[in-house]
């Protein structure tokens, strides 16, 4: 399947209020319904552009702001395979892997809207098929990779009864 990059009109400091507004985080409990409102304050109906497996591409400090877990939950439910950004805010970073959603760190200047991308977590590269270049990504920390493999921290914790094995 072919997967594409999506960019918003802003690139840096995309905060959790933009990802999912505080207006909805209380109101909507259903993940799929929540996903219909991602980035709504930046671009209406943005969710319609996303096909399962696509990527959202951004600049620095993605996910800054509130600790709301509805942010990665809604992104995951939207069908996105991963976020690709140059850096992430701390709480959002933990939350994403905790809910089994993948974040990739790399230089994103060479990715344009609707570029065709392939993510290879084994080789730690993103292939930009449209531009014919490979982009190196920062390896995902071991602990995060384990959460991802299990589908989230809850599943990991239940299977292992704690974190001892990963230290």
């Amino acid at each position, binding site marked *: 399947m072919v997967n594409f990059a999506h960019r918003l009109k802003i690139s840096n400091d995309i905060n959790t209020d*933009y990802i999912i507004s505080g207006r909805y985080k*209380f109101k909507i409990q259903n993940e799929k319904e929540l996903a219909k409102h991602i980035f709504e304050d930046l671009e209406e109906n943005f969710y319609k552009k996303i096909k399962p497996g696509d990527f959202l591409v951004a600049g620095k400090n993605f996910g*800054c702001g*509130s600790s709301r877990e509805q942010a990665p939950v809604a992104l995951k439910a939207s069908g996105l395979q991963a976020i690709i950004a140059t850096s*992430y*805010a701390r709480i959002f970073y933990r939350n994403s892997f*905790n809910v089994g959603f993948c974040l990739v760190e790399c230089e994103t200047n060479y990715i344009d809207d609707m570029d065709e991308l392939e993510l290879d977590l084994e080789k730690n590269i993103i292939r930009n098929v449209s531009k014919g270049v490979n982009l190196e990504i920062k390896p995902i920390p071991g602990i995060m990779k384990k959460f991802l493999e299990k589908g989230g*921290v*809850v599943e990991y914790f*239940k299977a292992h009864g704690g974190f001892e094995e990963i230290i």
Partner: protein
Amino acid sequence: MRQTIAEKILSEHCEKRARAGDIVIAKVDFCFGQDGTSGIIIDSFRKLGVETIFDKERFCMVIDHSSPSPNIGVSAIHDKIRGFAREQGVKVFDIGSGVCHQVIPETGFVTCGDLVLGADSHTCTYGAINVLSTGVGSTDLAITLASGENWFKVPETIRIIVNGDLPKGVFSKDVILNIIGDVGSDGATYQAVEFYGEVIDDLSVDARFTISNMAVEMGAKCGLMRADRKTMDWIKKHSIREPRPVEADEDARYLMTLEYDLSDLAPQVAMPHTVDNVCGVEEVEGTPVDEVYIGTCTNGRLEDLETAARILKGRRAAKRVKLIITPASRNIYLEALKKGYVETFMSAGAIVNNPGCGPCVGTHQGVLADGEKAFSTANRNFKGRMGNPNAEIYLGSPATAAATALEGRIADPREHKRRLK
């Protein structure tokens, strides 16, 4: 030796020597959720398949973000919180108690040397009283609820030294806005910050909370201060728990040290739509505003209300302005009543809300209309934050907010110098 405050507190809680970069499993002294995050905490806790929480004395929930409930959806979440609290025998600070970041330290749940997790990004507030407290998501909090611990990456530390003598009309909010403007919204991501210097020493504990509260706005994990006599007096007044003050070693390793002399600092304003978009008040003076909000976990404490009351006493807010004031806790509200501040506010045309988060999060109590501009003492001015993406939010101190309310335009609080302490 050679340890920072964060390394020391984490070492003590994981029972081995923690160094920046290490991943450790540490025991948590206290944890909590608020009404925006507790629903998912409860769901995740259930998924973990654990029957009872690790210690019912070390967890609480605070209903502050949408409080009292503005709609059926929120009412259902509040009901779920109360039900879980009854089942587990834990404390709920229900509607009207106040903002978690005031209620928790004020009630004495946390003390110097503690490791605290909160399912709220501004949990870093208690760094001002020498607590390593940081925000996490709901599922992370549920893990702690089930096990009493969590995993931590030991942070590098940036040391920030703030020297000088703040001019009249310039407050701790101006100090932290100035620093965030300099460092940037991600200048301290994944890192701890330690604050030192004459300015910090001179500030009251209330004013220090404002600074630590906003450490997360530069990406920091926590904003720590050492415990001095003021801290110890404050702790003694509020908590029966034994404080364990922690100081950094003299030869502690810092990622970097930033030094400021703020003797000439002007009142600072964060312009829309990012907290690091900071300028001196003179650059935005005269900008018309429709709503002024004084309150929140950043600036809803007694001292903040006193400053606002001094400027507003015997005067009326401009006609075009909705002036909304929200004391950070019930205790603060009662004190403000006794001291006559509430009467001053009401006479000035203000709306005095029940204690809680007020309009800060955009769910109720002062949602902005399209095209409106607000001046707020909160910690975030993101687009859509106060409920409307087509509105603009400016941030500043309670003094600047009160001066702005009188004019109906962003105003310099130094014009009211004689009224200020």
